[in-house]
Structures are given as C-alpha cells and as structure tokens.
C-alpha cells in the first residue's frame, strides 16, 4: 500500500500523461467523426510533449538560461526536441484538415458511416450503368 502511495507521489506527472494518452487514443479509434479524430490525435500528441518536459525537470533546477555560476539547470535537450515536435504536429494537423475538407467536398459528409454508405451507393450505380451498357451492346449484335 505504501509502495503504491509512494509511486503516485513521485510519478504523478507520468500517470496524468498516460491518462491523457488513453483518452486521446480512445477517441481516435472509436469516434466516427473525422474532425473528432483530429482532436483526439492532438490531445495524444500534447500529452507526449508533457511526458518529455516532465522528464527534463531536475529538482531545484531553474530554466536553462545561463545567469549565474553554481546554479542547477534543467535538462535543455528534451525542450529542444519538443520545440521541433510542436511545429511538426501543427503541420500534420494542417494536412489532415485539408484532406477532410476535400472529403467533405466529395462526399458531403465527415462521418465515416456516411462516407461508406455513399461509396456503396456509387458502386451500385456503376454496376447498373455497366449492365445497361451490356444490354445495349447485346441488342446491337
């Protein structure tokens, strides 16, 4: 029991990160709305950023900007990696949203069920057209 309390006390940041990650992953898998999926991916990504930044913290450390000798600084390397990752995450979001806008133009909906139903309808219509073409050909010969 004491072990569990100690575990939560010393690593609560990581546990919150895992909780946020689970929420984001669940929405990404189970939601049928494409924009909702993007929101889930975003929450997932930002929780990973928190994981890295929490790893970089050092007890009694200050921000990694030099100002005096003999001061403990936080680890600057994860900060740099996450600076890059934030910008990359925004650009992936932009591409995904552009794709969603195109899907909406083509199918008129951003729900997965609606898109699948429209695809099925289109296929059936194509088959009907093909049959009509065959009948026309047979009547010619």
């Amino acid at each position, binding site marked *: 029991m004491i072990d569990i309390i100690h575990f939560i006390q010393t690593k609560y940041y990581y546990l919150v990160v895992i909780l*946020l990650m689970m929420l984001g*992953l*669940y929405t990404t*898998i189970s939601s049928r709305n494409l924009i909702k999926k993007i929101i889930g991916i975003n929450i997932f990504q930002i929780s990973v950023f928190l994981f890295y930044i929490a790893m970089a913290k050092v007890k009694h450390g200050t921000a990694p900007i030099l100002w005096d000798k003999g001061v403990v*600084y936080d680890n*600057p390397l994860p900060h740099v990696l996450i600076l890059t990752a934030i910008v990359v995450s925004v650009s*992936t979001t932009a591409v995904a949203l552009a794709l969603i806008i195109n899907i909406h133009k083509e199918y008129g909906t951003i729900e997965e069920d609606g898109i699948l139903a429209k695809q099925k309808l289109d296929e059936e219509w194509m088959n009907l057209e093909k049959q009509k073409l065959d009948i026309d050909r047979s009547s010619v010969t």
Partner: protein
Amino acid sequence: MIDVMLLLIIVVCAIFALFMKDLLSATIILGIYSFIMATIFTRLNAVDVAFTEASVGAGITSVLMIAALSRTKRYEYHYTKLQRRKPSALFLKVISLLLVIITGAVLVYGTIDMPEFGDPEAPANKHVSPRYIAESEHETSEKNIVTAVLAGYRGYDTLGETTVIFTAGICVILLLRRRINT
C-alpha cells in the same frame, strides 16, 4: 499544490473536448487545453516550449480547426439510441476500450522502472546535456542554452523541421487549390 490543480484542470478539459457534440466548442476547449499545457510547461521551467505551445499549439491549431469547420459541418451526427445499441457499434466501442486499457496498463507497468520525477541522477540528465550546459556559452556565446542547441548543435534537426513545414504547406496548397472547369 498548483501543479496538481493544473493537472486536474487539464484532464477535465481533455474529457470535455472529447465528449462535446458541438465541434466548435470542442475546438475551443482544445485551445484551452493547449494553453493550460503551456502554463504547466512554464511551471516545469520549459519557457521556450511554453512560448511555442501557446502561440503555435493553442493559436494556429485553433485557427486551422475553425477554418476547416467553416467549410464542413459544425455538429457531430447525433446517433439515435437504436443506432448506438447496434451490435457492430457496441463491438467497436468495447474493442477500442479494451485496446486502450491494455495500452494504458502496459504504460503504467513501464512507468514503475522510470526514474522518479525530478531526479538529478536520471540517465536522461546525465549524458549529453551536462556538456551543453557547461560549454554552450563558450562555444556559441549564447546565454539561452535551448537556442544554442536548437540553432547551433542541432541545426540539421531544425532544417529537417523546416522541410516538414514546407512539405506540409505544399500539400495543403495542392489539396485546396480550385480546379478551373474547362
């Protein structure tokens, strides 16, 4: 104490963003989530990351989302009770819940071996970064270590990042251009 409060707020924000039927509200709450995350970054002394998260993460992502929503639909499709109780829908929900719980359990199990929060002896704080802290001012004459590493030691990383943004910009232009009907 304030750390725990902020973490609680952020979990509540995430839950509300995910279970909102109105996608515009969900987007705004996602912006709040990003901004509170920037506050947490400031608490953890990652000031540069907090700047970027507040401006790029909270600002530009929200703007892009709202722009996309203005061209699509604002409200999520409201499934009726009968549709929600269909076996296929329930199956999807149960399977995804199971998958997520397994993932979370494995991650918690992995956390047991992690060094404690704020441990100065952690392997991540032992190897490369002490050299950056000790030598960066002498080698790059830059007070801010994060800037020195970003633009000096790891300049090629930043070049790769810029390439990614460039590619993404070209992708968005190609996807959203208006074709002239001839």
